[in-house]
Every structure is written in structure tokens, then in C-alpha cells.
């Protein structure tokens, strides 16, 4: 009969599918064979990370860690919320030992989703001050960036600047630059105001900001600095990290932009400057807990922290570590003091306020 002929394409596709599965399957098998053969050994050799921080400095630090300890570091990079969702769905089966991300709000969100377990290590407690760790040690601070006011050195004198709230003043009308409210950095900033000043004040602030916009939000943080140079506006809310990137750019034009940019730390007399914190946490179902703890100890050590600051223009969390020269030149500043959990709680409200006030 025609039966076999009829099924030829089916067989071909099936063979292909099996072949494909076989290819990747065999790798997996090889890996798991190793695991079953020497489970103890495998545990002391690996640590698996899900990270939303995509920086080369991070990778370099992981490499150094491997050199020093012989523990191999495996990495999956992705967007924070996607990785949290993945961890949630993987549940007990997950291979991930550590979760790393930028922004306190996201870290709080991860904690709420119960993907972490507390880390216990005297070294870590010594490396990182309490205000830069989760209250329950669910995550540990890795580095911070300040969200500051950048201003044109030509057209603005620092005496005119004081607080975030002051930016809603009539005198800044048509002179203010800031990126879109889709940015996590803006969401966390507003969430911190909801916590510190209450919802009504926060909404008033957002409305005042929108009223003073020099233009509709456009582009990223760097673009705000360039708009100051181009004369579109005079003051911008920006992350110190991006000022660092601009000042160290390969493009001399960008370096010039950074040179004409002043950096002002607002709210020094009042609530303190807002910082974004990056953090690392031990996953609830980690299979290599010991290695993971070692890695956290290493990344918060003076050596790793100084490397991170020098190469990625972030503030170290370890008070013993030296800051990058550029950051040093801006001096010390007072940080906002708040429980990072509240940032996660208020993030949704912050977005609602942005939408209501028309902050695009």
C-alpha cells in the first residue's frame, strides 16, 4: 500500500526533530553524567547566576572569582522581571543560585515573590553596612548610583539649586529635562517620594515637573546631558553612572558634553539624595549555597568593589573600598534613608501618578 510513502515526510521531520533533540540532549546528558558521577565535586565547582546587570565589569569580577577559588560561574542574563518570573515558575527545580539586578524596587519585588532566602555570613555583614542590605538579608547591596541634578555650568550656578522639590519652582519653567516615566530610575525616584512625603505631595511634585518640562521626555539619561549642551534645557535629573560613561567616552564630543556639566546632590539639608541600589540575593532553592555565599563575599570585598567602581563608575557599598576618581571629585553626600521594601510597594502607585500627570 501507499502507507509508507505517505509517511515519508513525517519520518523525515521526526528524524530531524529527534536529531535536534539529540544534539542538545547529548550535551545535557554529558553534563548530568558528570553530576551523577561526582555530585560532591560538582557542587564545589559551580555557581549559577541569573542577572539583569549586563556589565563587562561584572563579568570580569566573576572571572577573577573563578581564578581565585576554582568555582566556575555560569550566567544567564535577562530582564529582571523576566528572570523573576522564570525563577518563580522553575520553583524547586531551579538551577539558579543567585539573582542579581539593578534597582531597589525590583529587589523588593523579588523578595515579595519569595524567591530569596536569607544569607548568613559574618564577612558579608562586615563588608556591607546595614542600610545597604535588605532588612532580612534577603539581598545584599552590590553598588549604588545617585540620581542627581545635572546642570549647565554656563547658565546655572549651583547656588540656585537645592532640592528635587525646588525643580517644580516657576523659575525652572521650560528649562527642565528628564527621561520618560517608563524608566525604572524615575519610577523608583517617585516611589521614594511617596514614602518620604506622602502620595499627595508626590503627585504635586510630578505635576510640577511636567509643567516645567523643556520638552517632552525623549531618549535616555545621556540624551538629557546632550540636550543641556545643545541648549534645549538647563537642568536635568540624571544618574551619576551615565555622567561617568560620558566623561570616559571614546567620542571627544561626548567628553566635552560632560565637561560642561555640573553635578549637584540635592536634598542634602533635608531627606537626602536618591540612590539606585544594585543587589545580589541567594535564591530560595539554591543547590550550591556555599559557593553562592562565597561569591557574595567576594563581590562585596574591597578588591572587587574598587574594581567595580573604577570600571563601572558606581559607588562601592563596602565603606573600606576607594571610589573611582571622578566620583571622589564630587565629594561625599547624604543618601535618602528608607527601607528599600517600600520602593517595591510604591512602584505601582508611582506609575499611576505618572500616567495621571501626563509624564510620558
Amino acid at each position, binding site marked *: 500500500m501507499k502507507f509508507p510513502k505517505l509517511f515519508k515526510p513525517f519520518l523525515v521531520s521526526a528524524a530531524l526533530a529527534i536529531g535536534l533533540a539529540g544534539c542538545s540532549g547529548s550535551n545535557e546528558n554529558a553534563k548530568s553524567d558528570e553530576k551523577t558521577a561526582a555530585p560532591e565535586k560538582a557542587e564545589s565547582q559551580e555557581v549559577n547566576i541569573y542577572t539583569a546587570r549586563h556589565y563587562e565589569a561584572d563579568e570580569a569580577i566573576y572571572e577573577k572569582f573563578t581564578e581565585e577559588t576554582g568555582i566556575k560561574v555560569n550566567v544567564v542574563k535577562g530582564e529582571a522581571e523576566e528572570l523573576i518570573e522564570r525563577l518563580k515558575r522553575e520553583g524547586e*527545580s531551579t538551577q539558579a543560585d543567585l539573582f542579581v539586578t539593578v534597582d531597589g524596587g525590583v529587589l523588593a519585588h523579588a523578595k515579595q515573590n519569595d524567591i530569596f532566602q536569607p544569607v548568613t555570613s559574618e564577612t558579608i555583614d562586615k563588608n556591607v553596612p546595614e542600610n545597604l542590605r535588605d532588612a532580612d538579608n534577603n539581598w545584599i547591596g552590590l553598588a549604588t548610583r545617585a540620581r542627581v541634578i545635572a546642570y549647565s555650568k554656563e547658565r546655572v550656578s549651583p547656588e540656585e539649586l537645592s532640592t528635587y522639590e525646588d525643580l517644580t519652582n516657576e523659575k525652572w519653567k521650560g528649562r527642565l529635562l528628564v527621561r520618560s516615566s*517608563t524608566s525604572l530610575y524615575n519610577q523608583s525616584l517617585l516611589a521614594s517620594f511617596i514614602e518620604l512625603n506622602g502620595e499627595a505631595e508626590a503627585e504635586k511634585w510630578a505635576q510640577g515637573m511636567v509643567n516645567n518640562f523643556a520638552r517632552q521626555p525623549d531618549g535616555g539619561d545621556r540624551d538629557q546631558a546632550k540636550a543641556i549642551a*545643545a541648549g534645549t534645557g538647563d537642568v536635568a535629573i540624571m544618574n551619576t553612572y551615565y555622567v561617568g560613561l560620558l566623561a570616559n567616552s571614546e567620542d571627544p564630543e561626548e567628553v566635552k558634553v560632560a565637561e560642561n556639566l555640573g553635578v549637584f546632590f540635592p536634598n542634602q539639608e533635608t531627606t537626602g539624595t536618591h540612590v539606585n541600589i544594585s543587589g545580589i540575593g541567594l535564591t530560595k532553592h539554591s543547590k550550591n549555597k556555599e559557593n553562592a555565599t562565597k561569591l557574595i563575599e567576594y563581590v562585596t570585598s574591597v578588591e572587587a568593589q574598587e574594581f567595580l567602581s573604577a570600571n563601572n563608575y558606581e559607588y562601592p557599598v563596602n565603606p573600606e573600598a576607594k571610589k573611582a576618581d571622578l566620583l571622589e571629585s564630587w565629594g561625599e553626600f547624604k543618601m535618602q534613608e528608607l527601607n528599600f521594601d517600600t520602593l517595591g510597594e510604591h512602584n505601582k502607585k508611582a506609575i*499611576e501618578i505618572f500616567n495621571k500627570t501626563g509624564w510620558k
Partner: protein
Amino acid sequence: MKPGVIKRNLKKELNSWWIISFIGAVVILLPILFIFSTLLQEPNENWFHIRQYLLGNYVINTILLVLLTGVFTAFLGVSLAWIVAAYDFPLRKFFRLGLLLPLSIPTFIAAYTYRTMLGYTGVIQSTLRNQYDYQINLDLFAISGIKGAVFIFTMFLFPYVYMITKAFLESQSTSYIENARLLGQKPITIFFKVVLPLARPAIVGGTVLVIFEVLGDYGVTSLLGIHTISTAIFQTWFGMYDVNSAMRLAAWLMVIIMGIFFLEKFLRQGRRYHMSNKSRPLVPVKLKGMKAIGAFMYCGIVFLISFLIPFIQLIAWAKMTFGKVWDLSFIALINQTVYLSAIATILILIFSVIVANVCRKQSAFSFALSKVMTSGYSIPGPIIAIGVLAIFISMDQWLAPLYKSMGLGEAPLILSLSLIMLVVGYFIRFMATGFNAIEVGYEKIGTKYTEASRMLGLGVTKTFFKVELPLLKGALISGFVLTFVEICKELPLALLLRPFNFETLATKTYQYANDEQIYEASIPSLLIIGLSILSLVIIQVLGRRGK
């Protein structure tokens, strides 16, 4: 119906082609059903907030973007396809292929490149400022807002329309156009009265691809601060931490897209497009004087804006950052990208051919099948990713006893930590790209060769290999290139579904671009572009040798 009749009908219809199509449809449907299942759940308060403040505005922006981009890409793609197919002018052969190159530049890279180039530190402003001390305001040309997005989408997506329409015109419209020419019609009349109506399936097919791309875009729209349904999906998930409302939005987006499909079907009103004449290449008419210069200028300017200028700019930036960024690990990146894209592309093409073949028989089933197979293209990548992830993790849990008996440990994640998951993600997302190309190919062939072959006693499968496959070659080539290039550029799926320590060129590009390091991003971007060009050239050479 008597059981006997049913059995006979089943025997008539049910063959392995049908079964494979069905399996493909199930693979695609599972994650999509998972997304749609959110519609059944009670909406939460976030959903009401979204409806109150966002939806109206977002829907308007989305419609505006889709409409403007659709009209402009159709205009640009069809006019270029017509000029290149029907006329001969200086450098025509070069433009024939060159006008496909814009596809190789990911739209978000194009947007970054043009923004930076025209911006304050860009080459134009800084040269004028430093050399001539002249401050110029380019705000009028700034790539921002809806106009910026439409510009980027049009200039870098029109090749979809161009490619499919040109392939159609070159081989299928010859006798109609020649007859019209013989009868003394002016070129304009021929274009509007003959070419446009004939090429409609090709034009619509290409434009629909563009529209899908726009609907699913996040990179360009978020950079330019335009709020669309797609950005709302991201904001709901990443900002309000509400995956369910995000999937709900995605489900509604798909409903809209199905609406578009049915509208098109309705507007066609069952007209069929079978070309019954022998397919014979269209001989281009030689243009002289001003007309030749005009055609050359038109193609030249489009090529300049949509490829050469951003390409040269990227090279300049790559030179600037080469020492800092380049190392040998890029070679491994290229290998991984090629390996992965090729596997996924071949898989997609095999299924495209099978399904398109089954779908030739007009029936409610085949219509539904073709819509299911192509529906993934309209869903934003991250949403597909969540659907695929959910299905794969439950499959791993389901297979846990088997894994255990194989000695792989308690409840390990085997499938969801392998590349298969990513390949399936690509399969769902890009089935439409391959399928549309093949479907147009089948529409061109019509059914008479197949019918003749079947009458002469060959089975479905033999007919396919002996008769249809050689005729489909052109469609296969364009399907391969389109899909391969798409997968090389793809980002959100690769980002979420890849196994440990796996990077592609696109994820590397993103790593820099996301951090506003566009200069550093230029090197991996150029590698993606180079890979796309290479695939284009290889396929073209293969295609020519076969002739």
C-alpha cells in the same frame, strides 16, 4: 454520515502532511492558549487603571503608527519593486539586491544610530560647530516621536514589501504587462490598472509582515517615548509587576490582529489569484536620459538613507571602540548565532512548506490552520517567552519520573535549560516570515501542475518532491533569507529563553545599547549586518547557479 463515508473522507484528507501541520499548530497554540487563558480570569485593579488612563491613548498611537508605516512602506516597497522589475537603468542589478540590505540593520540600532548622528554630538552638528563655529538646530529632523518612529520603520522595513512584490512582478505578471504595453497603455496606467491589482496578495503579504513588526516593537518605541499597546504590555509587567494584566493586553492585541486578517479576507471577497499563464521573466524596458537618471536617483537616495549612511556611521564608531570592545570571543558569538539561526530557519521552512501545502485546499480548517501558524509574529517576544517557558517547565515536571529513571536526579530542568526551548520560541515567533513567503510561492504556482501530477498517479509526497519543490525554489530562497536575518536580529526571546552562558550577537548588541553605549554596540551590530549580507549573497549565488 455513515461511518464508512467518514472513514473514506478521513482517508482522503488525512495524510502525513496534514498530521505534521497539526503537530506544528499544537506547538504554536499551546503557549498562545496559555496567554488567552488570562482573559478568563477576573481582571484586577491594575487592569482598570490601564483601561482608564492608558488604553485609549495607546490604541490611538498604535493605530497611527501602523497606518502611517503601512502606507509608506507599501508605497516605497511597491514603487521600487516596479521600477527595478520593469525598467533597466544604471546600476539596476546592484539595486535589485542592494535594496534588501536595510533589513539587515535591526530597527532599534537604526534608531539609535540616526538619533546620535543627527544629535548634538553627532557628526553633522559637531563638524559645523567645531570647524565653522556654526550652531545649527536640527530639531526639525530629530528622530523623535511618532514621525521619527515612522521614518525608522519605513526606511528599514520596506524591503519586506519590496522583496515579495518584486519576486512576484518579475516572474508572474509578464504576459499581462506585455499585453498592456502592446495595446499602447502608458506606464502609469499599466502600474495602476494592471500591476497593483495583480500584485495585491504579494503587497498585502509584505505589508502585513511590516505591520506585525511594528505592533510587536518595543526597542524603537520605548527609545522615542511613544506609548503603544506593546510598550503598555512591558510597562504593566516591568513596572506594575503584573504578568497577568500584561498577558491580558497581549491577548487583546492578538484579537485586534485577527480582526485585521478577517478584514483583509473580507475585502478580497474570495477573489483568487492563480496565475494560469506560463511564468516567464519580465524583460525590463531600457530607460534613457532624464528618466534613467530619475530611476537611478530614486533607488540611490533610498539606498543611501536606509543602508549606506547608517552603515558607514557604524563603521566609524566601530573604529573608535575597536580596541576596547573587540576580542576573540566574538568568533564564538558568530558561530553560535549562525548555528542557532540556521537550525531554527530550516525547521521553520520545513513546516512552512508542509502547512502551506495543506492550506492550498480552501477550507475552514486550512484557513484556521494558516492563521494559527502565523499568529506568533504578532505577539511581543517577551509574552511568547513566558508562554513557552510555562509550557516547557510543566513538560519538565511531567517528564520528571522519566528523568529520574534515567538517573538525572530529582525533578531536573532538562528541556527548559536546553536550546530546544529557544528554537521553539523562534519557531512560534517567525513561522509567519517563512510561511508567508512559501504561501505566496504556492499562490504563484496555482494548482494545475499538482493536479496534473496527481491525475497521472503520483502521491502527494512524490508530487511535492518532483513537481512543486523545483517550482518553489525562489520562494524557499526568499523565505530562508528573511527568516534567517530575522532570527539573527531577534532579541527578547534570545534574552529570556537561552541556556546558561549562551550569547548571540543580538544579545551582545543589546548589552551595550541598553546601557546607552551605542558606540560600543556598533561592533556586534556590524557583525549582524555582515552575517545578513553574507547569507543574502550565498543564497543569491546558489539561486543563480540553479537556473
